[in-house]
């Protein structure tokens, strides 16, 4: 058990720290945008990503030939830790750099790599991920957005995506679309690069319970996609998507400590109230949820160790989200019980309480996640599937029938 850096890591950490010390005067603050100043905020954060990229601290794990540093995921973690310790924000385009760029590196053509990676790294062009759809949440392979090949080999794209972060200022999106409905659902999808300013693309903010629009809906109405914008083979989009999701898992596995929900933050809120601090019920609840959050912190170190050894955390790592959301809900409930309705007024606790129901479903419902872990980690049998071996085009009819039987 050793949480210390290896000599190489310590050296890299010192280098990162030196660079941050030299550059932090020019860094923006950690706060999000204030109302009406969103564009300015994004411009500032674009600039800061550019500075980071030039310092070698964006795309740390990207190969050097694409502007990256060719370092390991632990080095990426070190950069994140040091930026956080210095109170300085990281890159703006976390999804592009962390997930979409690596997908293009893995599956894109040389031309695509040439064209897109450098501007992504420097935040000249921010990217968004266009996978989820209203009718395809947990069951991503059920997407209905359709790309139809044209005589000239280009594609026409129509459909709707949802839960799209950054869509409103992204230059490009990586979009999963159905290109063949006559085969089973996993086999008829392809992945495309779509310019977000193309004719027929309509981006609408999607407000959450908090009142803030963390996500967008994106509508596609006969959007023209050139033939060379496909990533990976025609009808081979599912494998490309799995690559993206793998990088997502790596990003989540390495970085989070209870999704930012820290035991000490919650303890502070209770400590402010001497009556609550001495109440057996309050203390019991605090002790239990704090235990969960500390478990997450140290689970994170286990995952980092796995990553350092060149692996990935096991599938059970996904359970960290369950614990984090559960403990944070308990914390929100506890703090609002202690503070009373005042906690529901605007402010951090109100935001926390309103944000959590959305987080609960984000990235797959808890039910799907438990299925996945039960099957992959415990080896439990899957449920009977009604959609196996059925062409996508016939699925709905089958669904109706299955429901009746």
């Amino acid at each position: 058990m050793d949480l210390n850096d290896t000599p190489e890591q310590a050296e890299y950490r010192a280098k990162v720290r030196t660079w941050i010390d030299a550059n932090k005067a020019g860094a923006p603050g950690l706060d999000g945008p204030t109302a009406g100043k969103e564009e300015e905020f994004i411009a500032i954060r674009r600039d800061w990503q550019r500075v980071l990229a030039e310092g070698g601290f964006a795309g740390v794990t990207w190969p050097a030939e694409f502007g990256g540093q060719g370092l390991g995921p632990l080095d990426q973690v070190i950069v994140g830790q040091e930026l956080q310790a210095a109170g300085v924000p990281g890159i703006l385009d976390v999804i592009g750099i962390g997930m979409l760029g690596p997908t293009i590196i893995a599956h894109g053509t040389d031309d695509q790599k040439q064209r897109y990676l450098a501007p992504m790294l420097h935040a000249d062009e921010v990217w968004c991920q266009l996978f989820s759809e209203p009718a395809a949440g947990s069951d991503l392979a059920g997407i209905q957005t359709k790309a139809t090949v044209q005589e000239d080999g280009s594609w026409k794209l129509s459909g709707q995506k949802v839960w799209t972060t950054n869509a409103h200022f992204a230059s490009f999106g990586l979009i999963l679309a159905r290109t063949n409905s006559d085969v089973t659902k996993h086999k008829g999808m392809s992945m495309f690069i779509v310019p977000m300013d193309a004719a027929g693309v309509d981006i609408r903010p999607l407000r959450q319970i908090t009142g803030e629009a963390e996500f967008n809906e994106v509508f596609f109405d006969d959007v023209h996609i050139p033939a060379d914008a496909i990533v990976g083979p025609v009808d081979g989009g599912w494998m490309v998507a799995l690559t993206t999701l793998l990088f997502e898992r790596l990003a989540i596995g390495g970085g989070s400590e209870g999704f930012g929900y820290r035991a000490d933050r919650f303890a502070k809120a209770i400590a402010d109230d001497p009556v609550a601090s001495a109440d057996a019920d309050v203390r019991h609840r605090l002790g239990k949820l704090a235990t969960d959050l500390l478990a997450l912190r140290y689970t994170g170190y286990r995952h980092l160790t796995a990553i350092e050894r060149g692996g990935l955390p096991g599938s059970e790592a996904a359970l960290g989200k369950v614990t984090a959301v559960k403990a944070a809900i308990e914390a929100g409930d506890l703090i609002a019980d202690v503070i009373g309705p005042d906690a529901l007024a605007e402010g951090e606790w109100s935001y926390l309480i309103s944000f959590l129901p959305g987080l609960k479903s984000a990235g797959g419902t808890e039910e799907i996640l438990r299925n996945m872990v039960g099957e992959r980690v415990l080896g439990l049998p899957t449920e009977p599937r009604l959609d196996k071996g059925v062409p996508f085009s016939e699925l709905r009819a089958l669904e109706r029938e299955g429901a009746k039987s």
Partner: protein
Amino acid sequence: MNFDLSDEQRSLQEAARDALGREDTVAAAREALEDPSSLPDLWETAAAAGWTGLLVSEDHGGVGLGPLDAMLVAAECGRRLAPVPFLGHLPATLLAEGDELQQLAEGEKRGAYLPTMPPSDLDDAWTVDPQSGLRRSPAPAFADGKVTGRVHWVPDAAKADYLIAIAVDGGVPKAVLLETSQPGVKIEPTIAYDSTRPMAHVELDAAEGKVMSASADDITLAWSVAQGLIAAESLGAVEESLERSVQYAMERYTFGRQIGSYQAVKHSLVEILRLMENARSLMYFAGWAGESAPEQFTLAAHTFRVGAGEALDYAARALISVHGGIGATWEHDAPLFFRRAQLSRRLLGGTGAAADRVAGELLAQAGAAPARG
């Protein structure tokens, strides 16, 4: 043995459902989050239906019904998240007298009861909810005919004409009727996470009012009725949450099946049903005790508060979860039920203090009668 609603009570329920169905109060609840002034005022509806005088005898202009009837109407309001100012008004009518009572009963004036918790094992004194924190605030004081003190999180105060304050004189509570327009009364509207429940803090500074003849028992009763009413509103919201959840679980498919066919979803919906049926039985308990076993009413009303609160906590979160991500968006109705759950849980002492009082009542009974069990 007839532990069920009467035909009259079913008619009352249906009439309430009809009356409240005329406006889309759930959509209004969302609009009011951004523009509180847009909240519809359902006072005329309530007065026309006789709800304003529901608990007042016919002699005083009311319709002379009981707590169960009031809870049934409150449940219908809760189902629609309808902003009917019941929580403040109805308990006030239990304590007011004379001409003012008649005005309240007939809906000519609006009342607001300043919720004041009877002494319990937690606090051996009359207390009110604090503005913030776990330490409860002392109830206003009564001295030289004047009331001084601050009461927080008062439902329906902003539009009230009369307040019923509980002011303590040497440990003895008095119900005092005040006009909201009179000197020494300051009403500060405050945030409402649930837009359909406008809240205010009330500051009383040597306010002179009419002292009512209500006894400490009457004042305790008003508190317990308020517990029953907020619980009933919660129960109504649970019923609606379950209905909507079941409907979506039938419509939505994933992996080739309706999501309601999956055990995880099915069992969660059954859990709402279980909590809801338990809460409904506790409402009947409170209604029956209110009518036939007054010595059990405090216990009954607080168990209902606890049971309905737990049910709504669960149902509101499940309503969001069953809808997946879309259930957590601004334009969806589910978050409005969630907001209702969050605020209700912390008003009128909160469900935590209600659970404590249930324990206290049972421990007192157990201690008083050591041979029981």
